[in-house]
Structures are given as structure tokens and as C-alpha cells.
């Protein structure tokens, strides 16, 4: 870690204003003119992924806005955070999207939420504030009251236009045919193959980050659970870990094991649900029925051990709220049955020619695209990106267990299905290890007062790397940045569908398993 920071400070010595370190986070305050060059250097030359960009409004304390660029040094379990100051009176800063494509949506998000303009951004359209929002509404600025209801004005979103002989558009959404979340897809098609797809999201934008600043700490965990419903545990754990890091708290080992079990149960039902979705979308109802039944088995197991089918209400700052140690035998027995049935199911799916025909070579995301957009989670791993927060930045009790991180290079729907299948088996093995070695003792420690400070919380959700950055002040949350894995992965769908036929879109979409709510917040 020191070696990397040293080499950067040596190279950019004149441009670095301040260096500070807290635990595994190194903050470098740099001049804004150099930011594009530095990000490019870190991202492309040192191969350190950019996992999040966010802004903070510190006009009251320091008279400026700040933008943070979070890089994850996976090999050394560390984070480098570059920070630039932006004058409140002239809120402009250089965009890095032209060099680092992964910055695209972050910069547009900051533009809407804080009114900071990324100069030179190739696509400066609005993202969260739709065109019917008046100009100058920037909800995450400190002087914006959360209860303000901005009036509607006239305005229309400009889609990219594709022209040519026989090219037509298919608009889909936001209210879809299936039971899924709202979002708009606009296909440009010539015959059957898709030649362009433009997604437009943020229909479910609820103002979560602003809400974090306006609720008490005990409620904040519940809010984190409701950012992306099927990733409730992952969000709650990432949130709690950030708070515990600020407080310098080490939670009891028993709580760490229970968190690990909950996280893996969540991964199991999500992955089985995604596999069911793929079987449904290729009209293989027999396989889908089996997979859906298995998913229901896991949901009922969840309910029996925690009281919530989606494992909600279990996590809290300082540990977990309910002990599941007494249900050990029940969990082990249920999981062994689920594992037996799941193996049979995967055998059935992969020996069905009508299914294989639809998923092989479909919806390819090539490694360079995946790297450029910073695609995370099983989708990234299916495109050859060997990253997993559980292994690279161990948290909860993952340091103590053995597990494999399956990786494939094919990048198609088939590869993503295989990766999910392998991960389910790994998850079951992880739960067994956690249960067999469950330590005795407390399950939570008291956490009434959280000191002022800031820290990163991170977690490998079923969809991939989830990042929280929290700053506390006076036992309240001053700023909470949430980065759901879907925020990184959504843009990859525009590439995955190219040259595929329209009827394959639902399969590709399902195989990427994207959350709209986690993305829009």
C-alpha cells in the first residue's frame, strides 16, 4: 500500500496538497486540474479499479464542495481516495469520463444532486432530476430542505437517434409486461437484431441519500435494508460496518458468523431466483417451476430462522439482533436437501438443448468493455474480472473460511448462469463452515453514541460490490453515499444486447440481474 501511495506522491508531488490515513483508507487531496491525469494513471496504468465517485457539500465548514474518487487496491485490502475542492461560487470541475468511462453516471449524478458541472462530459444530460424538474434543484446541497416539492415544468428527454433505411424504434416501459421494476428501454432495430439500446432509469428515485441525513441512527439501518429489497442484508451489513468502523468497534465473533450466514442465505435465494428467471424467459417452464420452488424453500427457511422471508431486521450497529445458533440443525438439514435438489436442477437445465441454444453466446460482455465500465459481481466474474469483496477486502467472518471465487472468460448468459450455480454451492459450503465453527458469546455490543468521523463500508452483495461512505457529526449522519452494484452494471446492458435479437433481451436482462431501486435510490 505504502509503495503505491509513495509512487503516486513522488510522481504528482507538486499537485498533492494533503495526505491523511485512517485504517485502510488513504485520502489524498489534490489540485483539480490534475484529477483526470491521476485517475487515468491509477485506473489504466496501475490497474486499480475506480469503485465510487461522490460529492460532499462542505460550504459551511470549508467554503467548498468536495469530490471524492474512491479506488480499491484489491491486492492489499486498502482504498485510495482522491479528493478535490470545488469553489461554491464557480462549481465546475474537469470531467474524467473521456478517459475513465466508469465515471460517466457518477458525474451526471453529482451534476443533478449538487449542481457541480463536469466540464467536458460527453453526455451531460440529466439523470435523476427528470426534465420536468425545474433548473437549480439540487437535493443533496445542505441548503435544500428534504420536504421541498419542486413544481413540474415542461421538458422532454432527448434520446439518441439512430437513422437509416428500415430502422425503427421500440419503446418499452416504465410499466413493463412482467412483474419487474420500472425503467425505460428504447431499442433501435433493423429487422430482428438490435443496433442500439438506450436505457433511461431513475423512475424509482426516492431521495434515499437525503433521507439518511434526516433520520435517526436506529432507523437508518432499516432504510439501508430498503434500498434494494432483495439485497437487504448486504446493504444493512455494509451500512453497519461503516458505522462500526467510525466508532472503532469490533463486533463479537458470534455476530460476525451470523452475518456471514445471513449474507450467504441471501446470495443463495437471489441466485436461484435469477436462474429461475432465465428458465422462465426461454419458456422452459418445467425448469422454472423447479427453480422457483427451490427459491421458495430458501425463503421459508429464512422465515423460520429470522422471522423475515427477506432476512430483514436482523442487523444492527454493533452486531445482530437475534441469535440463530439454536436453529443450527434445521439450517443444515434444509440446506443439504436444497443442495441435492439444486444440483439436479442445474443438471436438468444444462442438458436441455432448447435452453442451451438460447443462452450460449447470447448477450456477450467482452472483458475490455466490462473493465472499462467497472462491471462488478457475478456479471463481472463471468467476463473475466477476478474480483470479490469477500476475498479482497474480507469482512464479517470471511477471513476464517475457505471458498472459491468462480471466474469465467466467456461473458455470455451461459457463463453467468454457471457462475451463479457455482456460487450457490460455495455459499452452502460457507454456511456449513460458519455453523460448525460458531463461537459462543454475545451477539451485539451497545452502540448508542457514534463519534464524529467518516469511513467506508463495503460488502459483496449477491449482485456484487456494494459501497457505503458515511460521515457522522453529532450522532447524526452528515452524508451517506450509497453505491449499489447495479449502478455500475446497468450501462453494460447497452453493450451486451448489441447484435442480439429483441426476443433475447429479457434473457440478457435477467442474466445481468439488475436492481432498479438500488440504482435509482
Amino acid at each position, binding site marked *: 500500500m505504502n509503495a503505491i501511495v509513495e509512487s503516486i506522491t513522488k510522481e504528482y508531488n507538486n499537485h498533492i496538497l494533503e495526505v491523511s490515513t485512517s485504517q485502510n483508507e488513504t485520502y489524498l487531496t489534490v489540485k483539480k486540474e490534475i484529477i483526470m491525469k491521476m485517475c487515468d494513471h491509477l485506473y489504466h496504468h496501475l490497474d486499480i479499479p475506480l469503485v465510487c465517485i461522490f460529492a460532499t457539500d462542505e460550504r459551511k465548514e470549508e467554503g467548498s464542495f468536495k469530490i471524492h474518487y474512491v479506488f480499491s487496491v484489491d491486492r492489499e485490502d486498502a482504498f485510495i481516495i482522491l479528493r478535490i475542492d470545488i469553489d461554491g461560487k464557480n462549481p465546475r470541475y474537469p470531467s474524467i469520463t473521456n478517459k475513465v468511462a466508469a465515471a460517466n453516471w457518477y458525474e451526471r449524478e453529482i451534476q443533478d444532486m449538487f449542481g457541480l458541472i463536469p466540464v467536458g462530459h460527453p453526455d451531460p444530460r440529466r439523470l435523476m432530476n427528470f426534465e420536468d424538474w425545474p433548473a437549480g434543484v439540487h437535493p443533496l446541497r445542505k441548503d435544500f430542505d428534504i420536504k421541498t*416539492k419542486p413544481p413540474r415544468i415542461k421538458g422532454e428527454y432527448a434520446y439518441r437517434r439512430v437513422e437509416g433505411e428500415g430502422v425503427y424504434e421500440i419503446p418499452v416501459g416504465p410499466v413493463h409486461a412482467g412483474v419487474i421494476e420500472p425503467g425505460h428501454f428504447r431499442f433501435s432495430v433493423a429487422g430482428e437484431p438490435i443496433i442500439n439500446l438506450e436505457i433511461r432509469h431513475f423512475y424509482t428515485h426516492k431521495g434515499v441519500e437525503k433521507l439518511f441525513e434526516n433520520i435517526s441512527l436506529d432507523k437508518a439501518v432499516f432504510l439501508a435494508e*430498503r434500498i434494494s*429489497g432483495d439485497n*437487504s442484508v448486504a446493504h444493512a451489513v455494509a451500512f453497519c460496518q461503516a458505522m462500526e468502523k467510525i466508532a472503532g468497534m469490533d463486533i463479537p465473533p458470534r455476530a460476525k458468523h451470523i452475518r456471514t450466514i445471513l449474507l450467504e442465505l441471501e446470495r443463495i435465494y437471489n441466485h436461484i431466483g435469477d436462474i429461475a428467471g432465465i428458465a422462465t424467459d426461454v419458456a422452459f417452464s418445467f425448469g422454472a417451476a423447479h427453480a422457483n420452488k427451490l427459491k421458495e424453500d430458501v425463503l421459508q427457511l429464512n422465515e423460520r430462522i429470522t422471522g423475515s*422471508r427477506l432476512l430483514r431486521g436482523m442487523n444492527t450497529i454493533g452486531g445482530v439482533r437475534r441469535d440463530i445458533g439454536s436453529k443450527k440443525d434445521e439450517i443444515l438439514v434444509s440446506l443439504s436437501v436444497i443442495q441435492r435438489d439444486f444440483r439436479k436442477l442445474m443438471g436438468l437445465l444444462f442438458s436441455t438443448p432448447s435452453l442451451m441454444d438460447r443462452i450460449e453466446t447470447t448477450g456477450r460482455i467482452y472483458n475490455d468493455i466490462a473493465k472499462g465500465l467497472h462491471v462488478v459481481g457475478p456479471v463481472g466474474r463471468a467476463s473475466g474480472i477476478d474480483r470479490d469483496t469477500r476475498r479482497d477486502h474480507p469482512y464479517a467472518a470471511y477471513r476464517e473460511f475457505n471458498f472459491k471465487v468462480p471466474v469465467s472468460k466467456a461473458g455470455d448468459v451461459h457463463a453467468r448462469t454457471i457462475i451463479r450455480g457455482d456460487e450457490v454451492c460455495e455459499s452452502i459450503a460457507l454456511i456449513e463452515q460458519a455453523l460448525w465453527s460458531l463461537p459462543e458469546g454475545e451477539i451485539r455490543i451497545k452502540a448508542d453514541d457514534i463519534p464524529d468521523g467518516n469511513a467506508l463500508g463495503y460488502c459483496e452483495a449477491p449482485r456484487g460490490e456494494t459501497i457505503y461512505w458515511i460521515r457522522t457529526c453529532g450522532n447524526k449522519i452528515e452524508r451517506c453515499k450509497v453505491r449499489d452494484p447495479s449502478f455500475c452494471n446497468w450501462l453494460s446492458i447497452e453493450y451486451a444486447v448489441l447484435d442480439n435479437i429483441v426476443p433475447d433481451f429479457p434473457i440478457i436482462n435477467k442474466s445481468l440481474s439488475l436492481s432498479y431501486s438500488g440504482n435509482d435510490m
Partner: protein
Amino acid sequence: MTVEDEIEIMGQRLNDKIRKIFGRSLHIREVDAGSCNACEVEVNSLSNPIYDIERFGLHIVASPRHADMLLVTGPVTRNMELALLKTYNATPAPKLVAAMGSCACNGGIFADTYASMGGVDKVIPVDVYIPGCPPRPQAVIFGLMVAIGKLEQKIRKTEVRS
């Protein structure tokens, strides 16, 4: 009583009601007006082989134009308000609206923000509220049963008037 037994009993009662009022089946269009997707997980569960609501005469359809009932989730975000209104207007009368989940009932934890309308009944009329975060599939089935009873009342009222 196991989950399966509960479902059988409730399902049969529901089926009898649907048969009496609609002749055969009730068509539902699910609308996500900004939920966190937990309610969608449970709506999808309704169609799995354990609950399998189709066998009781409940059918989830692709378009509001085919629907007797809208099952709305989420606090209704500002960005979804117009889409929800359009969906409501596209549903033929007599229609039912069920608000599913705490957010849909009164905005839930998201009620007080710049981007949330704070509940489905702020935008369209609601017949039945199904609380829960998310409601269990059993609760959803019970809620649908109450909603159908309400439609029965609605139809009777119009008959008395005419």
C-alpha cells in the same frame, strides 16, 4: 398448520368469491410505483408452485387494459406519478386498486422526501390496503379477498341505484 394448508384454505375461499363475482377469474396488473423490489419478490412468489395463485383463478396480466385490478407497490415517486396515472386511466372500469406494502399504504419510510408522493392514495383512489414490509404471500392473498368483497359491494350499490 403448514404454509401449504393455510394457502389451500384461503385459496378455496378466494376462488369461490371470484367465481361468484367474475364468473371465472380475476385479472391483476402489478404496478411498481417506486418500491424497493421486496414487494416484487413476494408478488413473484405468488406464482411459484407453492402458492400458484393461478389455480384459484387469479391471473397476472401484461397490460392494464386486460386488468380488473391494479396491485400497486411503492410510495409513488415523483418520477413514476404520471406513469401510474396513465396506467390507472388505461384500466377499464369497474376497477379495483390494492396498495401493497407499507410504502404504498402511506409512504412508509420514504414518505417525507422531495421525490416521494407518500402513498398510492395521494395519486389514485385505493380500495384495499395490504400492509407489511413486504407483506407475506398469505397476506397478499387475504388482501385480494377483501378487495373482491369490496367490488361486490360496489356492484350491488350500482344495481340498487339502477
